[in-house]
């Protein structure tokens, strides 16, 4: 029951933060839509100016964001902020951070610098090694995992290249 309350507290604080972002986004959209040209020179009907729909959507987002924030602010379960901050130090957060770092390195650095098949093989190998040997509670033997990871990297990286570029004639990055 206590754990449930803490979860609810964390959710409420997260909702409050999101609500602030959404209201800010909504107001920014309203402003940017309002200053969009009315195109009077083209003699268009004022009701059809390009900013009309974004303006309405910005208003709707501001209202919905405010309602979400109001609801979240009323919920005063204990341990919300500390729980929310604590999430950043969990194993799950570390695993997600690792995936993001790997994905960014593969997408922004390896792809384009190396041939696609080679970049993919390195990424797949590193991914499997990281999650089967290091970021896990029950690590697999290093050598056996390395052999498996290398085999999967070669088969999958090569297979994707062959299937897409050679058989289905799709251009790869």
């Amino acid at each position: 029951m206590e754990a449930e309350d803490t979860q609810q507290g964390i959710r409420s604080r997260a909702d409050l933060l999101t609500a602030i972002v959404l209201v800010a986004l909504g107001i920014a959209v309203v402003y940017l839509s309002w200053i969009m040209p009315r195109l009077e020179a083209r003699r268009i009907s004022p009701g059809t100016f390009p900013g009309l729909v974004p303006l309405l959507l910005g208003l709707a987002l501001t209202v919905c964001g405010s309602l979400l924030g109001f609801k979240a602010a009323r919920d005063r379960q204990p341990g919300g902020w500390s729980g929310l901050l604590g999430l950043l130090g969990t194993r799950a957060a570390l695993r997600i951070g690792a995936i993001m770092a790997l994905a960014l390195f593969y997408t922004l650095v390896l792809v384009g610098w190396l041939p696609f098949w080679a970049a993919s093989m390195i990424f797949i190998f590193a991914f499997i090694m990281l999650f089967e040997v290091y970021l896990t509670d029950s690590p697999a033997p290093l050598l056996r995992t390395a052999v498996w990871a290398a085999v999967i990297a070669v088969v999958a990286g090569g297979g994707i290249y062959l299937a897409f570029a050679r058989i289905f004639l799709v251009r790869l990055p």
Partner: protein
Amino acid sequence: MFEGLILLGQGLAHFMTLGSLFNVAWATLLGVVVGILPGLTATMGVALLVTLTYKMAPDQAILTLMCVYLGAIYGGSRTAILLNIPGTPANAAATLDGHPLAQQGRAGLAMGLATTSSTLGTMVGIFFLAVIAPLLADAALKFGSYEFFWLALFGVVISGQMTGSDSPLKGYIAGILGLLVAMIGMETLHAYQRFTFGVTALGGGIDLIPAMVGAFGLAEILSAMKRRAITHIASVDDRVVPTFREIFQYWRTILRSGIIGTFVGIIPGVGEDVGSWTSYAAAKRASKHPEEFGKGSQEGLIAAETGDNAVVSAAMIPTLTLGLPGSAAAAVLIAAMLIHGIRPGPMLMVENAPFLYQVVAMLLLATLANLIFGLTLTKVFIQVLRVPRERLMAVVYVLCVVGSFSISQRMFDVYVMLIFGVVGFILREMKYPMAPLVLGIVLGDLLDLNLRRGLALTSGDPSPFFTRPISAVIALIILATILMSIPAVSRRVRALRFRRQTA
């Protein structure tokens, strides 16, 4: 009536070639594998596969994607039964009775029942697709800008209302965010570039495929890899093929679930998971043995699996006739159809009537392939379940990069995929549904264009939006939907109804 049957016959004959049947076989098998693997959803499978179909003929491309879609929804039931984890969100209700059946040593029977009821669910949906779609397309020809504006808004609102598990408010926010994404780029009425901030690549707007690959691919990878999954696969020692009696003693449940699934499928953006849960709840209410539900009820499993598969076929009704995606995967199918020069919407029946019946034929072939594979390849599918996520997700990410790059051959789309993946993951973690977001991206242009075109026709007078009969009805439904999502209003309505019943 007879013209429809002839067109359906022609549609079936069209695919009776070795090449088409080969595509049906491999795509359905791939779809089933995607569905079986936890963390890979039907929408993700279809979005990733669009890349492979670029060079195919349009009919073969859509056939392939349809087979993957149907195969994945069916395949997810295997995981639900054997692992107690839904393979796709559509199979969540199937875990309630599927896994208890497996624990009782009847995993084979559970899989057989799931396979057969999936087939029957698709058949019910196909029947209604063939009957309703031409009528709806005919009616939609009379729709103008006013009606299409409300329909687009209706799609986003109803999807937000029905898929917002935490609260409808989050569903609405997801829908508005999707609509805002669609506002980026050159608008179609006056060719003005909105929210591009001088970035040339944004001029054409955000493509749906990279956005979907991010929101359903990378976001799924992050969700699945958040923590290590420990799985216990139930053993399969009994027979897989059910007897005629085991299935048809529940014919009422099958028919009811099929009709509920069809109804849910017709509602834009409300996917298979809602169809499955609604069918399950209705079956429990009507059952002679509701106490068995959740403890291994065959009726419960049949209801869940009939309901979600009926949605797949029925989702094609608004998709093909109105251009409004019936589910998130149907949104990807719309994008794929546009890539291949097929324009879904009211004009489809005028421009390309045989295509609608070809879709019916595609669904028939895919469901037959599901039935054959499902009853014969049980042991192979169990092996697929043993693939560790750590090895699979790396390959899936590479496919995400390929899938998002290939549509326009530009790295910008890969960055879009990355952004949508991260934002999609955060939104998911905070219980924002993805379906309204996707629907917003698809329907944003339709909504924007038709509102302003309607206003241009009347020199800024909005009254036709409220005075034309169909427009007024849809507007009232939207208003009622929004009002009912306000707790104070819904409480009062419920109290009024209760008072009237007790009086």
